Structure formats: C-alpha cells, structure tokens
C-alpha cells in the first residue's frame, strides 16, 4: 500500500510539474506581448518614497495605459534614455537634465514638483549641526570629522550633496569619516543608522524609512535644500521606437491640474512629501 502511495505521489508530482512548466512557459512568453505601456526611467528616491504606488493607479485610470517605472539612480536613468530603453525621464538633477537635452536626447523639460532634502544624523547631534543652514552644518561635520554616509552613485541626491560640499568649500570631502556607499537612498540610510552617522536624504525616503535607529532630522527648511524634479520625453528623433504619444500624454497628465493634485495628495503620516510646481 505504501509503495502504491509513493508511486502515486511521484506520478502526480511529475505530472503537475510538467503542466506547471508548460503553463509558465506560455504565460511568461505571452506576458511580453502587451504593448500598451510606457517605460519611465526614474530615481530610487522617488520609488522608495512610495509616490508611484500612489500616483500610477490614478494615471492608469486617467490615461488608459500602464506606466512602468524602472527606478535606478538619476545618472543611470538618463543613460537609459540615451540608450533608448525608456520613453520618459522623471529625475531630479537639473544640471544633468539640461545636459541630456543639449545632447539631443530629450525633447522638452517640464518642472513638475519639488521636495526637499534634509540632513539627518545622530539625535544627540555631536557636532551641533541642528538648524536651518545646510552649509554651516556640513562645515561643522567636516571640521569635527564626524561620520557621514554618502550615496556616491551619480544620483540626483548625490549630485546635490556634492554641490553643497562645494558651496562649503570642502571639495571633495576626504577622509575615513566620509563614507560612500555607492547605493540608493534606502541602503545609505541603513548604513547611516548602523554607523550612527550623518547623511543627506530626501524627505520622501526618510518618511517611509522604517529602520531609523537613533537618527533624527537635524537640518531642514534651508531654501538650498529644495529638490526640483523634471520630466522629459525621450527624443523620438534619436530613438524612433519611443512611444511618443503615450509618453507625452503621461507628461501632460502630470502637469495638468489633476496630476498636480494627485502629487500633492500623497502623504505619509499626514505629511505631504512632494509639492507640485508646474508653471506653464
């Protein structure tokens, strides 16, 4: 009897698995056929803040097609556009974006929204960075050589951070206290939490970051900390396959009152993260 059961079990498993293979093979291959979507290259900080989770379902309802976001660092996102692997760029590094336009890879840059950066750090603030002045905070951190976790990954946040150091005349920051993780905002905050270090982060990622350990917001509200997001259609002249109608529709929706409202409506714990600022 036992032998019979074992045999049956084996036969059923094999049959099921064979069937599963075939089904899976079919599914995986047909899944790619659907063409009604656009690919948006965006940044990890935007993704990790949860904005797209909130925004994209509304976009789908309004537009009738899917918006697929590939979230990588700003540098990599723009490179994707250069290669033609994205239809729309949604990043936050004005200098890099204008370079992208100048190279002819983008059609037109729309300012869509901003959020702000902050400096977070150990809540007992050993260097006395707390306040509204980001530059003086960075100077104090460098002077006291207090641990600082940096992204170092060509992202918009990283580019902004490097600009602040430059403004503080500390360029480039060097020493064992300055640690580049080469990764996204989340992992960098993880590293900062682990090292009890200071870091520059965007509000969105911070608000949805759950592993804060002893970190707290220390510097915010400085005008310099405002972080502008821009959106561009990848130039179909350079990449004819770009889905220009759908891409443009998405951009039009983002800057429309409906889209701008959707952006403003996104909150974490009641706090607004992104501030729509499109001016026609």
């Amino acid at each position: 009897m036992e032998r019979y059961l074992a045999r049956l079990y084996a036969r059923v498993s094999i049959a099921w698995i064979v069937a599963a293979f075939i089904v899976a093979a079919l599914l995986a291959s047909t899944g790619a056929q659907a063409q009604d979507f656009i690919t948006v290259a965006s940044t990890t900080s935007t993704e990790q803040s949860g904005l797209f989770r909130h925004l994209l379902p509304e976009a789908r309802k309004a537009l009738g097609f899917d918006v697929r976001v590939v979230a990588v660092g700003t540098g990599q996102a723009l490179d994707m556009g250069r290669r033609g692997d994205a239809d729309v760029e949604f990043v936050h590094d004005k200098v890099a974006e204008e370079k992208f336009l100048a190279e002819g890879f983008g059609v037109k840059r729309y300012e869509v929204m901003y959020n702000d950066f902050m400096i977070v750090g150990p809540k007992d603030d050993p260097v006395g960075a707390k306040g509204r002045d980001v530059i003086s905070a960075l100077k104090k951190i460098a002077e006291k050589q207090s641990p600082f976790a940096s992204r170092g990954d060509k992202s918009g946040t990283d580019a902004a951070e490097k600009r602040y150091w430059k403004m503080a005349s500390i360029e480039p920051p060097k020493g064992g206290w300055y640690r580049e993780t080469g990764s996204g905002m989340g992992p960098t905050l993880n590293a900062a939490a682990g090292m009890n270090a200071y870091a520059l982060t965007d509000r969105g990622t911070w608000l949805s970051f759950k592993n804060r350990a002893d970190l707290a917001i220390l510097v915010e509200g400085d005008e310099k900390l405002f972080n502008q997001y821009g959106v561009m259609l990848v130039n179909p002249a350079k990449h004819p396959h770009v889905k220009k109608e759908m891409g443009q529709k998405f951009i039009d929706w983002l800057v429309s009152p409906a889209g701008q409202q959707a952006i403003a409506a996104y909150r974490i714990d009641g706090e607004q993260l992104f501030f729509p600022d499109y001016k026609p």
Partner: protein
Amino acid sequence: MHDILASFALAVRLIAGGDPELWRIVILSLEVSLASAFFACAIGLPLGTFIAVRDFPGRHAVVVMLNALLGLPSVVVGLVVYLLLSRAGPLGSMGILFTPSAIVIAQTLLVLPLVAALSRQFAEDAWREYREQLTSLGVSPARAVPTLLWDLRITLFTVVLAGFGRGASEVGAVMIVGGNIDGVTRVMTTSIALETSKGDLPLALGLGVILLTIVLALNALAFAIREWSAHGHG
C-alpha cells in the same frame, strides 16, 4: 530583537491573510522560475547527456567551458543580457527588456550550465554501466540519449529541482534585466532586496519566509524521491 519579532509576526499575518500584493509577487516568481527551469532543462538535460555518451572533437573544450560557466558571477550574466536586450543593443528591437521574458532569458542562461553539468555527471556514470550492453543491442550513442534520459528520470528530476531552486534564488541578474518594476517584474528576491533597503521588514520577511519554504520543500521533495527510488522502486 523586539523589532524583528514584531516584523515576523506581521509577516505571518501577511501570508495567512492572503495579502494580494504578496501573492502576486510569489506567483510571478514561480512563473518565471518554472519557465526558466523548463527551458534550461529542455536544452541542458539532453545536452549534458549527449556530451556524456558521445565523443566528438572539441568535447573536452565544451566540458571545460561548461564548468567555467558554472562559476560565472550571475551579475555578469545579467549585464550581458541587459546589453543584448537594450534598445542600443543587437536584440533591442524585440522590446523585451524590463519584461518577465528578459528575466526568463537571464535565469535560463544561469541555470543551463548547472543542469548540463549535473546531467552530464549522472549520464556519464550510467553510460559506463550501460554502454556495452546497449551497444550490443544496436543502440547508437545518439539513440542512447533519450534512453538514458528516461532511465535516469528520478535522478534527473532532482536536477530539475536544483535548476528551479537556482533560478528562484537569483537577485542580481533579475534586478538588472527586469528593472524591478512594481507589478510587472518584481519577484520575491528583488522585492526582498528592495523592501530591506527601505527598512520595511515585514513584507521582506514575509517573502523571505515563503521563498525559504519553497526552497526547503524542493529539497525535501528531492530527498524523498531519492530515498524512495533507492529502496524498492528499482
């Protein structure tokens, strides 16, 4: 520690409660891993067996290359597939970058050398035992391949399980060629990576528990099959 336990409890709740996002990710993972295991085995099992039974010019080089591919870092495979499938690359016009198909391709390339190498090993041992008698019966080496595949079906099934497990565990290559797109190419492993980096442990743990359970179940199944075949089935 309290945090981890709390997260763990939340994770169990997500699983038991049938959280739709969680299960969507699990099902997508199973689909792509099953598909890649299927393709890798469809090619790799006969390939490995053929190499075992047939001596041909360059056979040694093929064996060495297979073993080298085994040791290939998976992110390198991911990078290569990415470059191939990118619009700027040779296969760009297929438009399958950042789709599940790209994941299936990358995973298949990773699993194929494993399946071929393992099946070659088993087939070689079996062929040593069978060669004379089968040749005497008039079976050519090529004809012997399907015979060995069927005869070794129990053992080769464990190879299939190993291939599936390898595919299901892949993170780096899947991240690169899939883009980890929410709802489209986000699988268990890339989800765990993302949620962990966001510091959102419950979902990551929940997925981790499921992934672990699947891998353990596969290994248990493989073990049970080996035991069952060794005693009494023949």
